[in-house]
């Protein structure tokens, strides 16, 4: 990007590294407008939100009356899912089964956090370990493809297995730590939908070598129709109904369950940490902190000045990241020199490979129309 065209939002800290960004006459970005118009009106963190959540909780409890578990929670060892687990069990009085997908990149902090949490809360844990040889091959294929979203294999496996397991064991309610307080902004241009199996398979077909025999997948039909409409699976994001403050949640967890922080958002996975603090900014110029910090600004949990100050800090410790580069290369079964070529090879986007992008756009359009019609009816 040319320096002269650079612009940063006057309200949050999103900038022109997100290609789709536009600015109004006051220099406020399109992400802020999207937040004000589409997200904020439906986001209630006050009493009314909590009352809404209570209604959902009652439904979950009624559903799970004679069952061993009334809901399932996907956990990574990170702050959001850890806090959600505590909140669900201790505050909401639910009986969750905690589910973890091990993609081969767990940090010691992640496993220790999960251990402390489930022991302290006396919750049952179930894990699924993805076959490393298949995972390695798929991740390597994504690097070779040149696209930005290198987290697709991990994210896809995680949700595919979570949903599969939930339906297999007849658990209808899936609770996730996804939340608007820290994730309301995420530029589409920085990545691509990890749940698009057509895209995942296309990339693997071009660059993969190992057959994906056991790798957990979820296809378009299953994700958008089978699970929600046929199996009646409901995804609940409880943290969106409460004034969730990440920094307070971390302090709370540290005190209550001996939880420990791992340095950055999604740092619980060694791969995601490396990908977000090194690969993505170095190769594509995308600094995901901008989206996270902007989300916090819009949620009223941080000032713009604080966010700008935070952005001044280096993304990573240079010495540590060099060691991580060696580790990541070794895990992927390639030399560091080979890995370096992934940093400089021609950039590609998901559009360079087959995907369900058009289908997804159509689905979004239908859902927008449905929402507008609903509003009109309500009025």
């Amino acid at each position, binding site marked *: 990007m040319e320096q002269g065209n650079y612009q940063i939002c006057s309200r949050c800290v999103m900038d022109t590294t997100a290609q789709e960004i536009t600015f109004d006459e006051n220099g406020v970005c399109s992400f802020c407008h999207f937040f004000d118009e589409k997200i904020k009106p439906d986001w209630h963190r006050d009493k009314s939100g909590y009352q809404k959540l209570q209604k959902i909780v009652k439904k979950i409890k009624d559903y799970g009356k004679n069952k061993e578990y009334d809901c399932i929670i996907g956990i990574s060892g990170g702050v959001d899912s850890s806090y959600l687990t505590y909140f669900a069990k201790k505050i909401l009085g639910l009986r969750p089964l905690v589910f973890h997908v091990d993609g081969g990149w767990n*940090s010691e902090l992640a496993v220790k956090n999960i251990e402390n949490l489930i022991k302290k809360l006396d919750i*049952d*844990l179930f894990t699924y370990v993805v076959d*490393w040889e298949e995972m390695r091959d798929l991740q390597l294929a994504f690097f070779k493809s040149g696209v930005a979203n290198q987290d697709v294999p991990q994210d896809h496996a995680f949700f595919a297995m979570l949903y599969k397991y939930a339906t297999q064991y007849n658990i209808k309610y899936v609770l996730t730590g996804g939340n608007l307080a820290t994730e309301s902004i995420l530029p589409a241009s920085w990545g691509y939908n990890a749940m698009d199996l057509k895209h995942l398979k296309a990339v693997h077909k071009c660059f993969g070598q190992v057959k994906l025999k056991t790798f957990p997948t979820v296809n378009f039909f299953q994700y958008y129709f089978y699970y929600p409409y046929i199996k009646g699976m409901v995804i609940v994001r409880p943290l969106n109904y409460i004034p969730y403050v990440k920094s307070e949640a971390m302090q709370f967890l540290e005190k209550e369950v001996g939880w420990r922080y791992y340095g950055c958002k999604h740092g619980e996975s060694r791969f995601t940490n490396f990908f977000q603090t090194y690969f993505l900014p170095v190769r594509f110029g995308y600094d995901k902190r901008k989206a996270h910090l902007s989300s916090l600004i819009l949620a009223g949990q941080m000032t713009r000045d604080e966010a700008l100050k935070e952005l001044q800090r280096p993304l990573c410790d240079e010495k540590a990241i060099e060691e991580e580069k060696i580790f990541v290369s*070794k895990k992927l079964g390639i030399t560091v020199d080979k890995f370096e070529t992934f940093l400089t090879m021609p950039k590609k986007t998901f559009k360079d490979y087959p995907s369900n992008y058009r289908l997804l756009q159509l689905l979004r359009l239908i859902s927008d129309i449905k929402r507008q019609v609903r509003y009109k009816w309500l009025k």
Partner: protein
Amino acid sequence: MLKNRVIPCLLLQNQGLVKTIRFKEPKYVGDPINAIRIFNEKEVDELIFLDIIASKVGRSPNFEILQNIVGECFMPLCYGGGISRLEDIQKIFSLGVEKISINSFALKNIDFIKQASEIFGSQSIVVTIDVKKNFLEKYKVYDHTRNKITDIDPVEFAITTQEMGAGEILLNSVDRDGTQGGYDIDLITKITNVLSIPVIAMGGAGKIDDFVDAVKKGNASAVAAGSMFVFHGKHRAVLITYPEYQELEKRLV
């Protein structure tokens, strides 16, 4: 360091780690590099790493995997699996492994223990003895390469290996493997009573109390465990854990 070492034991099957129950039903538990890295960060004193396929199919150790593992491993490592030549041992030590374990090949050629200990020193040669009860409830040495209970008496065999120069015995109960129901204290006692070299108890650990029993009742010098460090709870969820050092120190005084 603890007075009695508490050693995680990892089993390699092809490229990945598994955990068995009574030497059967191998369950995949992940990638060796990541597991070792996590144990590193947990500051584990020592690690045992056994390739459970190598001898069965008659191949040498996988030196490539071993090299990757040693590169990540900050604690002393004992490797076992597929060792049948002195050159293999030489090569393994040159990679930075501290101890090697010989199991099935000791049953075929006991002199190999003598040769190995004379060249490399007793302190680095461990003999693993798998023991299983036969239909008469008698302890016998088990040969995992043939899936067979042999006629060999484990007490006599342990004495012989000591005489041949083994520096340490890794005593594994096949019947207790993966059950987490406690060590076979009777078996451990039988062996520790007749040996002067250290015995590492393995097979059946499920809680810290089991370590205490193996050490205090069975006189084991060290304890090893697999399931206890890789599984958690009733769903046998794969989760790498290691007890708090202070807790072990307190219990194993």
